[in-house]
Every structure is written in C-alpha cells, then in structure tokens.
C-alpha cells in the first residue's frame, strides 16, 4: 500500500507541476494580450481580442474529460502516445492555459491606468509597460491566480487516470470506488485535502508578503479595512 500511494503522489505532483508550468508560460502572455488588445488598450486590436477571447471562453467551458478525449491526436503528435503521465500533461496544460489566462486578465486589468501613463510619459514602450508595471504591480494577484490554477489542476488530474496516468485521483477511483476499499479512498482524500491546504496557504502567504510592502493593488484594501485603526494611529505617531 505504501509504495502504491507514494507512486500516486509522485504521479500527481509530476502532472500538476509540469502542467502548471506550461499554463503559466502560456497563460500569462495570453492574459496580458487580452488586456492590451482590448478597447482603449495599448495594442488595441478588436479582432485579435475577440478571437482570442472566444477561444479562451470555449476552451475554458469544455469539461476536462471531453477535452482530454478530443485532444488525443494532438497529444499523440506531441508525446508520441495517448496513455500515461506524459500524455496526460498535454490536455491538462491545454485546459489550464485559458483558465489561467482569464485570471491573469482580471488581475492585470486592476493595475491603475495612471501608472501605465506615467511610464509612457517617461518614454517607455509597450514592453516596458508590461515588464515594469503590469506584471510587478499585479504580482500578488497573479500569485493568487496561480494558486487557484494549481488547485484546479489537482482536480483535473483525478480524471487523468482514465488514460492510465495514475495519480491520487486514479487510486481513489480504482481502489476506493471499484474495489470498495473505503479506507484507501479516505486516505487519498486526506492526502489531497492536506496538499491543497498547503498550496493555498503557501500561495496566500506569498501574495500577502508582497502586499505588505506595497499595500496598493489587488486585495490590499480588504486587509487595510480589517486593521484600519492601527495604520492610521501609526501615521499620526510618525508625523508627530
């Protein structure tokens, strides 16, 4: 039982890790592109915006299990096979890219337009704006988005067992459901719960750490509302 579970944990980690990486590499530029090409954006292009937006919407609304089956021939051209861990990474990444891209879009949109203008007034080009303003200013929010994506990918990866990729979800279905080994199922549930909590905690911690120094964009106002009394008092003290 022990090697079975550790192998499953490793499989899940492997699939989720790689697909997260690909989702970030693919989704971040895509999300930024959606903001830049929007009406009033720096690279305003209604056609590109509509097309990309539509593709993202469709890809995001497809149930993962269908996406996996539909992508089989694509998966084969990339990995040479349609079964196993590596084959599962392809549909996981393809499903997560638009998911993450939408979250990136929302985060980046929250960046104050005045900052973009300030950099333009300094003589910065669009790439400068992206690199020096949009990404660093929305970083706390982007980290939260990445956390959400990882958690969603863990959920998706449970279905990867259907193509023989293994993983914790696969154990839960084969042992817990098909062989009525309830104990096994509860163990996998517990492992998943702990893993998700840890990831969420780490993500929140990182995002909050960045907020604390900046204290401006994203969820910071919420934090400030909770502790509104203290910083105000500290300000007064400093002035005096």
């Amino acid at each position, binding site marked *: 039982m022990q090697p079975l579970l550790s192998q499953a944990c490793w499989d899940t980690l492997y699939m989720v890790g790689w697909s997260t990486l690909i989702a970030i590499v693919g989704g971040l530029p895509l999300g930024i592109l959606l903001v830049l090409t929007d009406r009033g954006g720096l690279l305003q292009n209604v056609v590109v915006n509509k097309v990309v937006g539509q593709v993202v919407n469709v890809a995001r609304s497809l149930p993962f299990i269908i996406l996996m089956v539909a992508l089989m021939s694509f998966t084969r051209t990339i990995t040479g096979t349609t079964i196993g861990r590596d084959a599962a990474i392809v549909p996981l990444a393809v499903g997560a890219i638009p998911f993450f891209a939408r979250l990136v879009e929302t985060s980046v949109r929250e960046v104050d337009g*005045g*900052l973009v203008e300030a950099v*333009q*007034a*300094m003589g910065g080009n669009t790439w400068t704006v992206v690199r*020096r*303003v949009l990404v660093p*200013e929305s970083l706390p929010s982007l980290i939260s988005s990445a956390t959400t994506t990882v958690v969603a990918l863990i959920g998706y990866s449970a279905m990867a067992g259907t193509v023989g990729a293994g993983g914790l979800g696969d154990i839960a279905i084969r042992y817990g459901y098909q062989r009525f080994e309830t104990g096994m199922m509860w163990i996998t549930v517990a492992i998943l719960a702990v893993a998700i909590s840890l990831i969420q905690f780490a993500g929140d911690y990182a995002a909050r750490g960045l907020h604390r120094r*900046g204290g*401006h964009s994203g969820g910071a106002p919420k934090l400030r509302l909770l502790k509104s009394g203290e910083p105000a008092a500290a300000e007064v003290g400093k002035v005096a």
Partner: protein
Amino acid sequence: MITTTGLTKVYRSRGREVTALDGVDLHVREGEVYGVIGQSGAGKSSLIRCVNLLERPTSGTVTVAGQDLTALVGRGPRAGRELRQARSRIGMVFQHFNLLSSRTVQDNVELPLEILGASGKARSRKALQLLDLVGLSDKAKAYPAQLSGGQKQRVGIARALAGDPKVLLSDEATSALDPETTRSILQLLRDLNRQLGLTVLLITHEMDVVKTVCDSAALMNNGRIVESGTVSELLATPGSELASALFPVSGDASGDDRTVIDVTFHGESATRPVISQLSRTYNIDISILGAAMDTVAGRQVGRMRIELPGRYEENVVPIGFLREQGLQIDIQDDRPVLVKEGAK
C-alpha cells in the same frame, strides 16, 4: 519653449463628438512657470496631455524645445522611438502621484533611468542625488505606501526630473494635497524652476496656485484659452476675468458724496507709496475699501479699491495724479446712488 498652434482635440465615442480643445494657441517662454487654470471639463487635462502627446491632438501642432512633436507621431496608435525619446526629455507630475507600489522610493526614481538605459551605478547615484534635492534622502528604501501625500508627490517630482528635462508638466500636482502641503510642493517647484532653469507648465483649478508660483497664466473655458499673459499683463488688462479672480476686491461706497476707484498696481509704479503721497499732496482722506496685494519677485502686485471724499467731478485732479504715476485707475460707477436718486 512650449508652443501649441491651433490645437484641437475631438473625442468620438458611440457616434457622439465632444470637443475638448478648440484651437488652443499656447506660448510658454523658456524658464517661466506657466499656469493654465479653468474649471473641470474646460479642457486643461487634454491640453497638458497633448503637450507630450499622451493624447493625440485631432489637429494642430505642438512644439517643445524647438522640436515639433506632432511630426513624430507615426501612423499607428503606438508611440515611435523618436516620440518616446522626446518624451523622456519632458518630465511629468501627476495628481495621484502614479508611483509603482511594488518598488521602493529609490527604485521609482530610477525607473526613467532604466528606460533610458543608464547603468546601475549611475542610476542609483542620480536617484539619491534627486531625492536629496526634493528633501527625501532618508526615505530612499521606503515603499510609497509608507509615505504621506506630500512625500509621494516629492518622489513624483524627483522621478520626473530623472531624465534631466528642460520642461516639467504638472497635471494638477497639488489638487490631492492639503493647503499646507500644497504650499511646500509649490515652493519646491518654484525652487527647481529657479535653480535648474526648468520651464514649468502646470494646470490647476486653484487660483492660489497661479498666484503663488506662476509668472504667466491662461484661463481656459470650453476648450479655448480665454485670456493669457504674464500676471502683470493680465492686471493691466481692463476687465480681465483672470486678474479680478486673482486679485478680487469688493466694497461699496460708504455714502453718496464719495468716489470709489480701483487702483491696479503693476510694474514700476507699485514700488512707490502712491496712496500716502496722494493723501499728503491734496490733503484728502482716503479710505481703503478692499485690497488684494501680493509681493511677486520683490514687487507689489495687486489691486486696491479706495474711496475719496466728494463726487467724481471734484476728484478729477487727484485721479489724474494717480494716472500720472503710471497706475491703472478704474472708476466704479455708482449705480446704487443713481437708483437712490431715481427713487427720490
């Protein structure tokens, strides 16, 4: 230093057209502080944003430091390299500071230098020097969220100066600040103007700002410049709206047999104690009904409303004396008196 000719900006959205700028001719001389004042919606913001082409004018030209910026605009919506280079030589300060919250104060000031491609060492040297100039050398490692509004604007000014600009644009830089802080920021702008020979174009809706720092001013209304000139030229213009807003005087005659005149001081005459001379020479009692005076560059500038005993006919000589001294005299017609006579 900054010249706009026939600047027009029309915004089109959903078939409706809004004219924000309607043929604006602006001329800012080198080394002066020029204030554009007007109510919200008058087109001030569009004007200042057209100067560095953050906003693209529909027609007209903008020349800054001898360079025609409107000629650098490419075809697409993006700014080409030449325009970006020109922008890096124009500093801009914003109402809401627009500092990056993810960077320290020093890193914020270094940002324009990064864009210009300066080396790390040169950047930090320049940034620290500028922070020292604006009086914030102890805050280099702080984040903007830890600063007060006035300190944030000082950082904004230091950042605007990083590219060694000859021109500074100030977009309502003091409008989000309290009166005390406003004064200190304006003082800083004035000092920079003197020390660095910086030409400053500022827009504001506060008369006090114009009065405190500006050499010249323009009044905007409905996308047009209604009046413009140096502060003393404006004062010399009879019926100038801007002059009466800058130096408001009020007060009515205390009786029927009185003459009320407005005396405008500007230029040479303002240095002499004319009112007491008048009183001594003609042995008349003068009462001051209202006055708005200021000392600008060591000279008294402003207006005063005074009352002389007797009707206008009796005061022709003293008034002539004042005119001879080079003062501008406006006789207030005594409408209340006429109404009273009519009632009799």
